[in-house]
């Protein structure tokens, strides 16, 4: 199941040039970039691991692309996303976040139904990639 989260996720996957252009857009807006990866794409999993430190003071997207390709080489079968953080007063939030890599095989989610009292049903979503880890 193809995960859709973050900006652009309903579009076909970006090429490297397109990713670079988006990163440059962030940098032009003065948003520092962070690269994050995870193996658990659960929509409620907001704590992805950061690859290195957030990259401050960088003017050119090529530098980020280098780090991104390192990250891709280290985690070839993880989800990787790029976030641009807008630190300006009154905003102070992630301004743009999009996926730049997904694993070849996306196992999707399992919907767990729990019968509780009074015929109520509680639902839990579990990602298969966590319950049945690769290897």
């Amino acid at each position, binding site marked *: 199941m193809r995960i859709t989260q973050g900006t652009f996720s309903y579009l076909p996957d970006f090429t490297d040039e397109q990713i670079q252009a988006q990163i440059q857009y962030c940098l032009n807006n003065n948003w520092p970039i962070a690269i994050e990866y995870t193996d658990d794409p659960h929509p409620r999993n907001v704590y992805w691991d950061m690859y290195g430190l957030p990259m401050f*003071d960088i003017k050119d997207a090529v530098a980020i692309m280098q780090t991104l390709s390192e990250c891709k080489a280290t985690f070839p079968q993880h989800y990787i996303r790029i976030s641009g953080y807008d630190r300006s007063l009154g905003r102070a939030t992630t301004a743009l976040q999009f996926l730049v890599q997904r694993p070849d095989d996306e196992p999707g989610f399992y919907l767990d139904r729990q019968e509780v009292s009074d015929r109520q049903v509680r639902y839990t979503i579990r990602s298969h990639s966590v319950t049945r880890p690769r290897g």
Partner: protein
Amino acid sequence: MTDTPTTQGDQIDLDQVWQSSDIQALLDKLNEELIGLVPVKTRIREIAAMLLVARLREQHQMSTDRPTLHMSFTGRPGTGKTTVAMRMAKILHSLGYVRKGHLVVASRDDLVGQYVGHTAPKTKEILKKAIGGVLFIDEAYYLYRPENERDYGQEAIEMLLTAMENQRDDFVVILAGYKERMDTFFQSNPGFHSRIAHHVHFPDYSLDELVQIAELMVRQQMYAFDDDSRTAFREYLEQRVQQPHFANARSVRNALDRIKLRQANRLIRAGGSIVTSDLARIDVEDVRASRVFRGGAAAETSA
């Protein structure tokens, strides 16, 4: 446009190309803001011309390798190396040789780590910041410490060399420092010497140039010499040049700062009412009060 280089080809209006790139404006600005330094300016103009021609050749499908742009600026302190490097970044940017045209200033501390494994990430970080711009390494010879063979500087040098070669399109390195020490540095690191295309030497300023610089600074800061204080300042410089730790334009700036301090003190001490022009006027007494006139060579080491 389809002409081979051997035929006459299209007419190219060089004047027009030169004017339309904003190099001329940048060079003019350089001329205006930097007094003296004639050899440097000529050299920069030559480099700019070469880059422009290379660009034109590229546009007309003549084979051009990307020219090597790494430079070394040698000269004593205060001769304007950093300022010129900043302008150089702008020039390279306007010609499209670097994508962003910012200047990242780094010294040994920013590149070399303090323990094993600390150097590589530090150097990498700086290189990453410099991508798309110019990396200015001040006093580059400190990177290399032959007396300590376990020094981590060598590691930084190697990373720099690799980056200078492999990422030639991404950034330009400018090394700066004293002439003699840079020469020994290049001798012991031939790799650097061969990767650097332009060696530019910044000569010391003459006395007249120093006076002009002072005038310019005074004007920029909205102060004014009167005739007496101008002569006094000239005499000050004559003596200051002889004394140790003279750092050209930087010493001039520091001297002016101290003069401004004395001027303010004099005004406050005198009290009473003044006219606005008094706020700008530098009195001869402000200049003469300097320790330099009392032969205090060692006293003025802060310059």
